[in-house]
């Protein structure tokens, strides 16, 4: 009896001890490998580590636009046998028959990239109040993302304010967003650092702001209906007049694997083959067997190329023509390569958008080696930094604006400076078409082409693999996913 009592008392004792223990109803999470958001951002090192990724995010610029560049006449992704058919997505892009739903991934990718970066910037602006210089830089970066949004989608959201303080996400007209970007950039303009290179490399400085403003004004007629050519000239002058940038003789050095050294770069996104991957244009464009030419660990993907007519717009003596890979290909040891049973000769001609399987289709179209191919790179990523803005573009922009202001001599001076470097004779007279073609040769595959074609009203015209497209195609659709998530968004006309 005693034993019985003792044992039952014992069991009850255990039960009470356990139930009474505080840990037995405590459901607070103890964290180990994760960082709750309210426990970070206090020290300077932590703040730096939060600002840095805002620019790390900018590094996805290349990733976001390299495929979409296929909507222009400088890049095409034809179907080679079954390869690159991809549900006809590339054909839809090139023919301007994309759809908001079927191609949601493309468009939503850009949209979410833009606005997720804006969210982060808004948070960082909140977290760095009092640091006026940094806040000015962040506002400029935020304005740049809004500029991208208005350029691609037109009627978008103006997002200022953070998760905690933000207001409802209303859709604004393209002109309203234009006004916002302009005001923001002009507001912060005096506070932005004029330092070039060093700690400013890859970040916003005064001249990047000049560049964004110049681009905004260059396309003001498209965005608002009112041209701003004089203001374009004004901000181009600011960059050129600073004498902080120059045109290197070697055009292609702007795109080498050590192009962070180029004096021409105004805004680049730094890449590294292992520390910050993402620069993989060589994989997208080179033929499978070019693996043997450049000693690559992986066979490239044999996709992107240019149209024969675009390739032909380069004179033979034009040094910039070296950006194209064409003709017989050789292995690293110099032996000629074969594709199946025929010599591996890349042709500028693309017989059809959709080609049957076989060497003809695989070898069709000139490939871009504008960005230097990094031999023996260990993975699919290269060291070249992607150049968003550079001085060459500034000369062409100023030339174009001056031409449109009927200042042809000034225009010729700027444009011929670019032609001179390319080793081709200067123009003696100018037309808008000359300017567009020059921009094409100078800036091919730098993802300015869509904007340029629209400004010159050539985007919707017909070319080899494309019929005339509707004017409404000059704006991308608001992504279907965003329409579903935000009832305040209305689709752009024509979709």
């Amino acid at each position, binding site marked *: 009896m005693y034993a019985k009592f003792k044992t039952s008392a014992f069991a009850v004792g255990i039960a009470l001890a*356990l139930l009474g223990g505080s840990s037995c109803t405590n459901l607070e*999470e103890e964290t180990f490998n994760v960082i709750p958001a309210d426990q970070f951002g206090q020290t300077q090192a932590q703040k730096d580590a939060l600002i840095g990724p805002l620019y790390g995010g900018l590094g996805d610029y290349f990733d976001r636009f390299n495929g979409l560049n296929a909507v222009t006449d400088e890049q095409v992704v034809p179907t080679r046998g079954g390869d690159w058919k991809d549900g006809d997505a590339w054909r839809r892009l090139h023919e301007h028959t994309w759809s908001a739903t079927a191609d949601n991934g493309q468009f939503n990718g850009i949209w979410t990239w833009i606005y997720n970066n804006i969210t982060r910037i808004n948070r960082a602006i909140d977290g760095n109040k009092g640091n006026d210089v940094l806040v000015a830089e962040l506002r400029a970066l935020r304005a740049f993302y809004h500029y991208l949004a208005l350029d691609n989608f037109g009627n978008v959201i103006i997002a200022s304010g953070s998760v905690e303080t933000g207001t409802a996400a209303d859709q604004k007209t393209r002109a309203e967003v234009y006004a916002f970007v302009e005001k923001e950039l002009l507001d912060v303009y005096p506070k932005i650092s004029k330092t070039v290179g060093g700690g400013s490399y890859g970040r916003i400085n005064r001249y990047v702001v000049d560049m964004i403003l110049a681009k905004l004004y260059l396309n003001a007629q498209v965005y608002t209906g009112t041209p701003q050519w004089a203001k374009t000239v004004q901000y181009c002058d600011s960059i050129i007049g600073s004498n902080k940038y120059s045109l290197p003789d070697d055009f292609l050095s702007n795109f080498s694997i050590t192009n962070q050294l180029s004096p021409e770069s105004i805004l680049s996104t730094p890449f590294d083959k292992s520390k910050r991957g993402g620069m993989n244009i060589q994989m997208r464009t080179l033929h499978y067997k070019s693996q043997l030419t450049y000693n690559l660990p992986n066979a490239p993907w044999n996709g992107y190329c240019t149209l024969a007519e675009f390739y032909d717009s380069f004179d033979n003596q034009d040094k910039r023509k070296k950006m194209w890979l064409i003709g017989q290909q050789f292995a690293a040891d110099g032996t000629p390569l074969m594709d*199946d049973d025929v010599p591996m000769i890349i042709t500028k001609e693309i017989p059809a958008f959709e080609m049957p399987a076989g060497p003809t289709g695989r070898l069709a179209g000139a490939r871009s080696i504008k960005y230097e191919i990094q031999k023996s790179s260990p993975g699919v990523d290269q060291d070249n930094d992607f150049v968003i803005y550079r001085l060459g573009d500034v000369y062409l922009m100023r030339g174009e604006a001056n031409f449109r202001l009927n200042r042809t001599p000034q225009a010729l001076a700027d444009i011929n400076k670019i032609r001179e470097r390319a080793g081709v004779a200067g123009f003696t007279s100018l037309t808008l078409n000359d300017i567009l073609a020059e921009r094409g040769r100078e800036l091919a595959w730098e993802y300015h082409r869509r904007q340029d074609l629209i400004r010159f009203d050539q985007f919707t015209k017909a070319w080899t693999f494309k019929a005339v497209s509707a004017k409404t195609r000059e704006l991308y659709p608001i992504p279907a996913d965003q329409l579903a998530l935000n009832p305040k968004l209305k689709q752009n006309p024509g979709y």
Partner: protein
Amino acid sequence: MTMKITFKTNLGRIAAKSVRFATVFLALMVSGMAAYAQKAVTGKVTDGADGSGLPGVSVSVKGTTTGSVTDATGSYKVTVPSDDAVLAFSFIGYVSQEVAVGSRSAIDIALAADLQSLQEVVVIGYGEAKRKDVTGSITQVTAKEFNSGVNQNPLQSIQGKVAGLTITQGSGDPNASPTVRLRGYTSLAGGSDPLYVVDGVIGVPINSISPNDIETMDVLKDASASAIYGSRAANGVIMITTKRGKSGKPSVTFNNYVAVEQISNRLDLLDGDGYRREVGRLKGPASLNDLQRFPKDANGNSYNTDWQSEIFRTGYSYNNNLGISGGGPNFNYRGSLDFINRDGILANTGLKRTTGRINIDQKALNDKLSVQYNLSFANTNSKLADWGIIGSAITFLPTIPVRNDKGEYAEIAGSFDLNNPVAMLENQKFDEVKRITVGGINMKYEILNGLTVGVNGAYRDENNVQSRFRDGAIKAYQGTNGEASRGLQQSKDKLLELTGSYTRQLGSIGNFNVLGGYSFQEVDFDGFGARNTQFVTSKVGYDNLGSGAGSILNPSNNYTSSYRGQTRLISFFSRATANFYDKYNVTATLRRDGSSKFGKNNKWGVFPSVAAGWTISNESFLEGNTTLSFLKLRVGWGQTGNSEGIGAYNSIRLLGPVGSYYDGRFGDFLPGYDFIQNDNPNLKWEVIEQTNIGLDFQLFGGRLNGTLEVYNKDTRDALYRYQVSSNGTQYVANNILANIGTIRNRGIELALGGDVVKTDDFVWNARLVGSFYKNTIVSLDGKGLSAGEVRFNPFGGRGLSNVWASTLRPGRPLGEFYIPRFSGFSPTDGKVLMEAKDGKEPVSEYDKALLYEAGNPQPFLTGALINAFRYKNLDLSFQLRGIFGHSILNNLRSNLLIPGSVLETNMLNGLDQLPNNYSANQLSDYWLEKATFVRLDNWQIGYQIPVANKLVSNARVYVGGNNLFIITKYKGVDPELEVKGDLQGGGTSQLPNSIGLDAGGIYPKTRTFQLGFNLTF
């Protein structure tokens, strides 16, 4: 944390006490028996069906507390007070018998198997119940009914046996675990696996248990049965009870088998000559001059390599299992050791698993205290398979030798996707070691008559080390730069449960029981990994990571990693059952679960259930009916939760390292931090509300018995990783795990069985199990969140990025194929033509084609026919299992029948059935096939060797096997594919796993032949 210490110390003290009490009571009992001995009766209890001795049968003298238990041979000895005594023989699963002793001193008795099985005890959560009183849907499978064959995983032992429990082994990979889904697909991101409870320990990995150690597996199917497990019960609960010792003389069992395993079906690929012939026909004879694709040996002869034969082999397996058990009235034990070695049919793959288990039962304090100790250990050494090798063996050209003249692996330099599979096989090591130890103690003490308190404590310690090396000198692994990696994952799980239970007999009215309890479970998990690349020698592999050059030449922050986390679940639960007049049964349960993983606004959930049973056959109007001997109606309703898909810290806003950024001040890249997760303070379990109506019946005195069940299962607050509006202010990260959607599963299940023929010498028992169900994604969006258009089932192949065969569509079943209708090949260019959206001329562009609901990868019916025959000492059993009405999109075949692309990969025989200029694969219903099949899952022929030997009490030899044949029209390798039905990465991705897509590169299924014996000493 003080609690843990208290707990352990107390257990230790109780354990020590128990042993002391046991000793005292043993002594008392023995002396007591001696004092009253008047007459000894001996005898043997046998199985009325096959005459074998029945161990563990309780033999009691009616009206006294005297009794005994039969030993391993079925023999017993009992002392009776007088000739008037009546002996009662009872054993679970057999009809009890009472025999008057009279003047006899030897009484042999044959017990008839209780086909009605109504007295059988099934395991319910935190207790047991008699089958006749059960109100929920519970199916028990006992060891005797387990599938024969090579089954290292207990799930394979019950595949096909339980209506509504779909167990799919999608491959022949010995290291791949089967997928288990109960009653349809209830969840995308909430978790889909059932909860495993092994001897009361919640959450033991089932692949760490040897089927040889299992006594019963009870599957709790409906909410009223499983709701006692609350927030983790939605996918059903599988209760596993391991074998325990029985009183009597020690029994030693030894089971052994050896097995050979071969690929069950191969692809009908072109051989070297066939490939050359097709290339010559389609591309012209000049194509054969390409010496990369068509090399010749020194004598000018072409090669002919069968890559499937090069990588596959005959696998040999063996299993040894030793069990020793015994005990006395108050103390029983069973220890076992099991070793299985299984070679995969893909060379260099396989597993070796050792499991050990000790179960001890102790009774003390006048039998009022009972203690169960369980200790188990499993160690699995696996050689894992790289399924990419299988894919390469399908596509690599048969005209290439394994090695070229120089003795190097032959490769096609500069080829995008063709790699020598033998080179891949021979130049990688891919190993895993898993260890798991589970210790548990379960004490019950009867404080007063009918009032029992219990303590259940368990500790599980698991670790897993995965190591891999791929030699960068091999073409296929150039891209990895010769990567070597090791990773450790470990977890520790502490469980403590306290229960109180009160049972009261209400005279002739019936009885009732109430149970209450508290449960605390804490899981700590952590791990780390390291990798390196660019090794100058392949000699050290992953054993010396520091010797790689990669971390120096290509610095990056992904060479090392580590993680750690913790989750805690606290619960209060209760159950009340009442049984009246042997006709009416009522059960109600309630569980309140609190989990650290849930959002702060929803930390606690309540999960109720109620159920009732009515034994109609005990009503006067059916009493004495000889045809319908038993009929019971059960109705149950309950809510269970699903929360295993929620990980630790999923509800809080998190920052974390995100890649790197360039800092010009240092001229280098630094790690950046950014938001990686939105907070969701409302994050909670999914609610699965289930209604179940069941009818249990027996006809012809139990000759035929069965169960018919109908259920409706609604998942509400279904979890999904939703897109969030990207508007620059509202959310910090791209998606949010939230409870929005609704999913419905409805079904009918039937189990029917009985002895078709039954004579003294010949018995044929047959059982039919079938399940119909229908799955519907009712809705996905709401509360301002949208899943967007979730497209999945990627139709893969070259030039097929972003081509999806299924879309999550409200109102439609998960995975339904939504694809164009094939209308022909274009006579001009060989392109696939499809029915157009505008209904006019067929089109060749995918975006102009009309998509339609082409088929469902989910079957409408799954069923099994289980047969067991016995003729004298011979027995034969086999199981036919079928899946009916599902469709498979044969993506692999579509990539291997493209005449225009014949030079890209090896192809299947039959290229001439397609236009010569057809060269681009196109998604359409042309590749959709009906995949109905019937498979002979397993078979076994055994012979019970008559033993007239004191040493050996039972000896049986058998031959058997798995997957002897399959009947199907499906043209792929096998129509049974892995069917997970949830999101990839265990819910971390937004993309559902593929379902019904035969994408190739699948480790092929095998056919097994087995020879074994069972011995009992």
